[in-house]
């Protein structure tokens, strides 16, 4: 469980986040939506323990968070399976285990036959799946996702969203999912939090439940329309 109480963070005296209260339970997906620059990535960095916030209290009971960035951030000089095994290698796991875990994940992620390819030989969607595999390889209990599909073609995005939802459910993982796209936040999140433009503060908190498998598009569009009045302040134009 992750609990933030009255958290705020400043960069060089300029506030980026203020008054953030949130909890994330095991197995829950919390989608955070807001315009770019509203402190979403800062929130993820706080959850990952990369930065200590200037104000407030953070209580993180998750043992092992894993991160998926907006860009794949793969090592160009390592093959796909070696990239997936990066976290295991960092944890000092034996080579045979690295190989075994990586190949099982590659199969699950639809990356068969790509094990010995280098990142520049893979398509953008495959690279992001390798990055996802790298995060899942360390058997995390919390997945931190920083706009992981923003750089993908719209056609690929829907498939990746479904894949991540399935994986989160299979592994009963908690996730903190950050995006600027409201439909994506509705599709991914059990709970949705909308942040105001900088400095980010919570302007709406909505319990949505999980996206159904059938008629997902209808569900998403209907939900977006229903909640729009409450979250529109996050997107002033």
């Amino acid at each position, binding site marked *: 469980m992750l609990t933030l109480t009255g958290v705020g963070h400043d960069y060089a005296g300029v506030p980026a986040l203020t008054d953030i209260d949130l909890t994330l339970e095991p197995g829950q997906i919390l989608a955070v939506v807001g315009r770019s620059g509203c402190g979403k990535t800062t929130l993820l960095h706080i959850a990952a323990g990369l930065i200590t916030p200037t104000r407030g209290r953070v209580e993180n009971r998750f043992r092992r968070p894993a991160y998926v960035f907006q860009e794949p951030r793969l*090592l160009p000089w390592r093959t796909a399976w070696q990239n997936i095994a990066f976290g295991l290698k960092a944890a000092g796991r034996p080579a045979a285990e690295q190989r075994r875990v990586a190949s099982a994940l590659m199969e699950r992620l639809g990356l068969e036959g790509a094990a010995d390819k280098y990142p520049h030989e893979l398509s953008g969607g495959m690279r992001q799946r390798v990055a996802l595999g790298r995060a899942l390889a360390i058997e995390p209990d919390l997945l931190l996702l920083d706009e992981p599909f923003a750089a993908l073609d719209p056609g690929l995005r829907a498939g990746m969203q479904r894949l991540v939802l399935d994986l989160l459910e299979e592994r009963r993982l908690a996730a903190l999912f950050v995006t600027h796209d409201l439909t994506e936040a509705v599709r991914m999140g059990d709970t949705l939090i909308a942040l105001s433009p900088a400095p980010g503060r919570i302007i709406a908190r909505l319990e949505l439940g999980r996206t159904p498998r059938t008629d997902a598009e209808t569900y998403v569009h209907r939900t977006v329309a229903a909640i729009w009045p409450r979250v529109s302040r996050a997107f002033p134009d």
Partner: protein
Amino acid sequence: MRRIRRRLWSLLGIATALVLWHLIALQYPPWAVPTPLDVARELVRLGQTGALWRAVAVTTGRTLAGFGIAVLLGGGAGLLSGLLPPLRQALAPVVTAIQGVPPVALIIVALLWFDANSSAPIFTIAVAVLPIIFAAAVEGAGAVDRNLIEMATVFRAPRRMLVTEIYLPHLLGYLFPALLSGLGLAWKVALLAELMAGSRTGMGAGLGTARVNLNVAGMFAWIAVVVILLLAMENLLLRPLKRRLEPWRRGGEGGGG
């Protein structure tokens, strides 16, 4: 097809140069300007006596020893300087000063401190080449992708892994051009050092002997050997090594075939 045509042009360039050399040489007496054929004959003679191979072995050994020291020290110090800005600020002016010292001056000092027949040329080569490698390593370490470092931090990679998984592979791309020019410099300095130090062995010594005997064809022959060795080292050792060490770049070149 394109590659063959490129080769043809290269060969044509070399052939033209040789023909021009030959025509010019014919205008002068053979003891002043030898023809390419004279030089080739001299090469064969040197090869037959065995003196050539012994000299090549000795000079190659010295060159690689000095070059190796420069790569280890320059690369190591450069990597550390890239990681620790205060160290970089402390070392950079020192290395720049060393780079400013002409190799000839280095040789004179080296002769006072070291043995003219072994360590003096090695020392000179190492000091002359070190700044080139150092500068490339500093620049490479500084240009490392911060996003990858952040990724490694998130995945709790130990410091050792940052070096082996990120810094070293990244640095290789920066170091390679420096290694090539450093190796070229190493050969030139090796010859210079052997000649200046009056070494009894090595190609510099052979060049010195040819000079004393006013054997211009012999001098040309030694120069040709140096050029051939440098090209061989670059194309038979360093470039294949780069391909082996950086298989991930292969797909980027050309493509298709």
